[in-house]
């Protein structure tokens, strides 16, 4: 068929072109010559996504409220003191109110740690294997790459790319994410790694794995983690709560133990988050962690 004969060279050219693009972009990394193309993508699609989010987000929040109900209930049963607050939040029919509440708690957390933040809303999420989200604030709001992103409850991730009105955040659950973390009330440090796709497909609530650098340090379920803070406070500022150790696995033949962490932030229903635009003047240590729950209380 004439049609087929004509289309083969086109296919070959397009495939070759995409291979060249992949190679050039891969070799260039952060300074890739194609970053202009990405910026163009952010400039074109950013406003469209923003507009779409204005329609989608209210609906999405309602859906989230329903789908999260079982897991929130389970938590509430465990922590009776939190029960009241969660129930109220679930039953609040006014989404505006819920959002204002989130923002309030966010400001409270940020205030405790002395972080200077820019609040933003999640407008879209990544495809395929990547655990990334887009925020509706960009360089126009003073956001730069390698800034810490947190929700009211805890660490969310870090900014990787910034467009004029959007910012891309790599979530802490992404398989390519590594965060330095510290155990609460101790100096034991380690590396926190994501397990990919919000870790949900493992059927667990612990999408983060944590390895202590010191093999002999005590590590048990229930301990809590905060960020250690990076050199120059970029990409991670110190003192942001991360999550609770859910279980500890000892791999035979391995020097270190691996702990699986249940994060404080709800990675499946991220909505209002904060970008830390200025680090705290001094390390807040454990000040941002919520008061520790009394066992059986």
């Amino acid at each position, binding site marked *: 068929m004439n049609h087929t004969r004509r289309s083969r060279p086109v296919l070959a050219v397009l495939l070759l072109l995409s291979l060249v693009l992949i190679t050039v972009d891969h070799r260039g990394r952060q300074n890739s010559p194609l970053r202009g193309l990405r910026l163009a993508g952010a400039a074109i699609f950013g406003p469209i996504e923003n507009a779409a989010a204005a329609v989608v987000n209210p609906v999405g929040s309602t859906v989230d409220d329903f789908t999260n109900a079982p897991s929130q209930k389970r938590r509430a049963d465990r922590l009776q003191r939190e029960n009241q607050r969660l129930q109220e939040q679930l039953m609040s029919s006014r989404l505006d109110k819920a959002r204002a509440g989130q923002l309030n708690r966010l400001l409270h957390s940020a205030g405790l740690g002395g972080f200077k933040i820019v609040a933003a809303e999640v407008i879209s999420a990544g495809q395929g294997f990547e655990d990334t989200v887009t925020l509706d604030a960009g360089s126009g709001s003073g956001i730069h790459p390698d800034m810490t992103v947190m929700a009211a409850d805890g660490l969310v991730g870090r900014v990787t790319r910034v467009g004029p009105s959007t910012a891309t955040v790599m979530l802490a659950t992404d398989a*390519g994410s590594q965060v330095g973390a510290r155990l609460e009330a101790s100096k034991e440090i380690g590396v926190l790694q994501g397990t990919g796709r919000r870790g949900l497909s493992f059927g667990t609530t612990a999408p983060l794995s944590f390895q202590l650098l010191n093999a002999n340090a005590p590590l048990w379920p229930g301990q809590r983690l905060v960020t250690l803070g990076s050199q120059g406070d970029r990409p991670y500022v110190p003192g942001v709560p991360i999550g609770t150790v859910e279980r500890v696995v000892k791999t035979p033949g391995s020097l270190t133990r691996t702990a699986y962490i249940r994060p404080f932030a709800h990675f*499946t229903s991220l909505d209002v988050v904060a970008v830390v635009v200025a680090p705290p003047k001094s390390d807040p240590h454990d000040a941002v962690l919520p008061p520790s729950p009394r066992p059986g209380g």
Partner: protein
Amino acid sequence: MMTSAGASSAGRNLTAALVIVAALVVQVAVADRLPLPGSVTPDLVLLTVVALALLNGELVGAIIGFCAGLAADIIPPADHEIGRYALVYCLIGYACGLVSAEMDRSSVAPFLAVAAGGLAGMVLYAGLGMMVGDPRATWANISRLVPLSVLYDVLASPFVVWAVLRVAHRFEGGRASRPGRNDLPPLKYRAMSREQV
């Protein structure tokens, strides 16, 4: 006759571009945020490429696939090498275009095309990721994400294919001068319009 054909092909390209942009935005703003079991989401862009390729043949399929893939590579929050989706969708658009002639004979063919496309797309994308050393593309990840994502693709495909056919048909139906054309099923109509070109 030539001018009307030219106008209709420009219109068809515009329709295809709009459909792709809509699919991309719905994908990142809605589908990828759904907390579905297994945290896998249907690939609406791939489904759109498959549908458009089945409608338009392999040449258009490959070009549409490449453009859609390139857009999927640069739409925030994409965080991988530019060109990965472009290559994958281009191949899938071409392959689905090749079997477009089969569409009129069998009613299950579109579903097979979607399932095969979904499987091939995920595996190819992951394979490319492994080649460039993407830490996310590990066997553990792929083996647990691929079966579910193919299932979701097949489940979502009737809606996406229907929507794409609807848009394509509406546009071309509006342009058609002869009455009665609107009554034809879109696939038959495509076969007819191809014979005339």
